[in-house]
Each structure stands twice: as structure tokens, then as C-alpha cells.
């Protein structure tokens, strides 16, 4: 079974600074996708960024980027120029590259952004 682990229950960052959230996963599959989702107090999960396992290039989306280390099964999220609106719960998630696969989540990291 696939597992996703986020070892940082809470993180904080000063506004305009950079923060990195950690995620590791365990799988025997070679083809899969990884995601970071953001869950603000409004409760709705919002997709932040995605990574295809077969791509060596790290994904970037504006201020958000990932460091994907496939051999180490590590998938960290870097948020640059942090903004107050970035404060939320962040979840790392995994899905196999197979029709009908389930999305498996980590435990989450609560990010606080200090003004």
C-alpha cells in the first residue's frame, strides 16, 4: 500500500520570506503523480501544484515550486515570497498512474504566515 508522510505538523514563516514543507512517500510503483493541496479555513481543498514521476524537471507554479527526488521518494514544496493568504493546511498527496486510482494524503502541515 502507498503511504504519504508529512513530518512537520506545523510551520511558520515571516511574510515575504521562503518556507519549505517536507513530504516523503512509499510506493513500489514506477508511474505515479504527486500533488500539493492547500486547505484554508473555508475547508475546500485547492490544488497548488502537481508533479509527474517520470519527469525529472521540478514543477513550478508562480511562487510555488517543488523539489522532487524520486530515488529518495521525497517531494517538498517551496513557497517563495510568502503572503498572508498562503496561511492554510497543506497536504501532500499521491496517486498511481492508473485509471480509477485513489488519491492518498499525508497528515498535513499547518502553515502560519506572520506579518
Amino acid at each position, binding site marked *: 500500500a502507498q503511504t504519504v508522510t*508529512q513530518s512537520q505538523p506545523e510551520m511558520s514563516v515571516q511574510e515575504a520570506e521562503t518556507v519549505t514543507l517536507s513530504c516523503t512517500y512509499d510506493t513500489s510503483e514506477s508511474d505515479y503523480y504527486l500533488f500539493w493541496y492547500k486547505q484554508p479555513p473555508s475547508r475546500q481543498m485547492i*490544488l497548488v501544484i502537481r508533479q509527474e514521476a517520470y519527469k525529472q524537471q521540478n514543477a513550478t507554479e508562480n511562487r510555488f515550486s517543488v523539489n522532487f527526488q524520486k530515488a529518495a521518494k521525497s517531494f517538498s514544496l517551496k513557497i517563495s515570497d510568502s503572503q498572508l493568504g498562503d496561511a492554510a493546511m497543506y497536504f501532500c498527496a499521491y496517486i498511481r498512474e492508473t485509471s480509477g486510482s485513489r488519491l492518498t494524503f499525508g497528515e498535513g502541515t499547518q502553515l502560519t504566515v506572520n506579518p
Partner: protein
Amino acid sequence: DAGVTQSPTHLIKTRGQQVTLRCSPKSGHDTVSWYQQALGQGPQFIFQYYEEEERQRGNFPDRFSGHQFPNYSSELNVNALLLGDSALYLCASSFFDRALEGYTFGSGTRLTVV
């Protein structure tokens, strides 16, 4: 283009009662998955519906059941409610054969069992 819609947003039930939660998927999506999220924890997979059939199931008892309708909308039913069933229930929709596109989530139903 409407996203995922869940109803109701909040619900209070008494232990032993039954509850039905509803979900309308994002337009075009054909698959609905349900998750249970306890406070401060990650979502746990309950089950997934595609073509009106349960395709996968997580580690949840038979008290949890579901249904998918021809218009792809879905219901989650929980019988004989326990205090431990209190949680945020998230519905997510997706394309069955496009895992890369990920899931689109609703805002959830907050269920409180007293």
C-alpha cells in the same frame, strides 16, 4: 463552470441515527470519491464511484454506503451513527482515466454526532 457542490454544509445528528450526504461533481467529471477528514488530520478515503458502481473502498465498515446516479451525482449514507463519525466529509470528482488532472473537491459537510 460549477465546481463540486456538497449539501448540507453542516449537520447535527444523534448517535444511532442515519445520515445522507449529497454531492454534485464538477461538470464533465465521471467519478466521485468520498473522504472522511477528522479535525487536524488528512482525509481518509472511504470509497469511489464510477459508472454507478463502487470501484474501490477504503478501510470503513459497512455502515458507510453510497450511490452514484446516472447524472454522476452521488450520495454517502452512514447508518447507526457513532460519536467517532463526527468529521468533515469531503466529496471529490475526477475523470476516471486522467489521474494527472487530480481531484476537484467540494467544501465538505461538517457532521457532528451527539
